């Protein structure tokens, strides 16, 4: 049993719309162990980014609030500690990297200053030492000429380069947990390959836990040890990566995996999931996926299923009323 890093329990986050609160994320529970890459997959609007922001308590500047649940990190509930304490954890124990590296960096400040500031925020060391440390982390993330990069402004860097700088910044305090929100979506495939490789390298060296948020199942398959699939603010399935791709249980997961074109599979048409994601304010009553589900029965429209373990497995969980029959169907 490896060491537990983060334990999220029954997280619920709501947003204010006009006068009422709509639930963006509900009953989300998962954990991350040290040195593990957990994938959080789903389509746009499924609540995967909201989940990460809730963990980091970065929803304060939006109209969102986390109204229920616990986020246990090293035995502390991050939702209950003071803002000051939280600031000490952000960037030091838990770091985040975002989809768009360009806009995450301050365009008017040299890279040098931004990294040094991040380091000095959490460490009582001299500026000189901080600069040395910045130089070292840039070197570690594979930047060929750290000195020039330190002296440059963000707009002088390419997309791949700025994502490396972001990762360097996130890693500068050697956090235990790295939350990567679509880190390679804005990058080209060859650059994506470099960045993914880099993240795995960091994981291996430092035993960092990584929460990888992405919509790309290809990235998930190559990077993750375990995967959580989200739909409409709920976890619909959780499984180790091999199980998930080999025998997906939830109809949504099945549809998602089937609808991705695979290189070398030589197909000319793809099965697709009918319809589109429901709007937050007009969620269906029962199972959120029922309106798009081809197996949906009466109970699916009436009652929302619980996230329970799949028969005969203690690692794969699924939120579906009728998955038993379907699982057999998939295997048949």
């Amino acid at each position, binding site marked *: 049993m490896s060491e537990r890093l983060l334990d999220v329990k029954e997280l619920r986050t709501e947003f204010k719309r006009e006068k009422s609160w709509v639930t963006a994320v509900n009953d989300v529970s998962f954990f991350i162990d040290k040195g593990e890459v957990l994938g959080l997959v789903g389509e746009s609007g499924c609540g995967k980014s909201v989940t990460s922001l809730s963990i980091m308590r970065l929803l304060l500047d939006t109209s969102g609030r986390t109204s229920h649940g616990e986020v246990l990190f090293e035995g502390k509930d991050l939702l209950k500690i003071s803002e000051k304490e939280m600031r000490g954890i952000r960037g030091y124990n838990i770091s985040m990297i975002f989809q768009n590296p360009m806009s995450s960096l301050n365009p008017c400040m040299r890279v040098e200053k931004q990294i040094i500031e991040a380091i000095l925020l959490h460490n009582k060391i001299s500026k000189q030492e901080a600069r040395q440390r910045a130089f070292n982390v840039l070197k570690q993330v594979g930047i060929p000429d750290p000195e020039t990069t330190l002296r440059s402004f963000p707009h002088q860097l*390419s997309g791949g380069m700025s994502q490396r700088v972001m990762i360097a910044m996130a890693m500068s305090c050697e956090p235990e947990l790295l939350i990567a929100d679509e880190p390679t979506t804005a990058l080209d495939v060859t650059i994506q390959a470099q960045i993914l490789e880099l993240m795995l390298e960091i994981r291996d060296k430092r035993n960092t836990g990584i929460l990888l948020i992405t919509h*790309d199942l290809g990235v998930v398959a190559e990077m993750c040890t375990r995967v959580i699939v989200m739909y409409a603010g709920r976890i619909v399935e959780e499984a180790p990566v091999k199980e998930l791709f080999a025998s997906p249980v939830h109809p949504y997961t099945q549809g998602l995996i089937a609808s991705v074109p695979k290189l070398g599979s030589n197909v000319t048409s793809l099965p697709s999931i009918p319809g589109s994601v429901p709007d937050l304010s007009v969620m269906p009553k029962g199972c959120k996926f029922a309106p798009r589900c081809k197996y949906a029965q009466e109970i699916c429209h009436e009652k929302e299923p619980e996230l329970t373990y799949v028969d005969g497995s203690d690692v794969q969980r699924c939120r579906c009323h009728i998955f038993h029959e379907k699982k057999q169907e998939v295997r048949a």
Partner: protein
Amino acid sequence: MNDYLVSVKNVSKTFVAKSGLGKKKFVHAVNDVSFNIRPGETFSLVGESGCGKSTTGRLINHLLVPETGEVWFDGQKISAMSEKEMRPVRKDVQMIFQDPYGALNSRMKIQDIIGEPLLIHTKMSSRERLKKVQELLEVVGLNAAHGERYPHEFSGGQLQRVGIARAMTVNPKLIIADEPVSALDVSIQAQVLNLMQELQQDYKLTYLFISHDLSVVEMISDSIGVMYLGTIVETAPKKLLYGDPAHPYTKTLLSAVPIPDPTREKKRILLKGDLPSPVNPPSGCLFHTRCPYATEKCSQERPKAVELEKDHFVKCHYPRIANG
């Protein structure tokens, strides 16, 4: 000549990018590009951002005019046409864009948007137009009631279908699809791709499909051109390109695509560094700065396109070197 619907011959396009104190810089967006598209087939241009694939698309429908080289469409040399001469030809070349919302005028109703090409290119009455629009809405999986709505009421996938319906109104010969599914979620992406293929069969369409996603391209294309830094480094029918890539860049690109199958062991070829700036393209072979097999010759001499077998062209001094 008549075998091809589109024929692009040695086309180049540079943009002027001013920098600093009035010094002019030239961005070599498209550099000596040639390819042909047969009627009824899907030709794809793949490459990373900034490789000039979108510019090439715009050169073909005359939104941009090449500096050198020729663009032939349906037996006409459109690169030499004026905007006015081009206007009737536009009926036959329609376009679908990456950003489905931005491509639609948000102040117009869906039915007016779809009916616009009819208004421009035909003499139909407004009732005839509406009837045709409603037919097309059905074809792309929407219904007549949707026509009364405005774009902001639709989801991305639905808007992309509206964009496709608009392209279909005037029975075009060629549809240029510029990253039509990259802004969509995977489950929606499959819907749109299936729709495009269905329409191709039913209406005998020819597609020029521009994308960065090699998995999508493999699914939809007949032939593919791989672009790097403004030039096509390899052109081949699908089977050859994916089965027997001859250019090291194609090989790298294919190896970099993440495959949604955790059991598959694969060897990823990692490229050194970043894409060189198109303002200052490298000498010799454009890829030599990142190519693991580059030699002295590569940095000095720009390779010419060689035909390895029928329809398989590659611009490399050492084709198939990466295949061992």
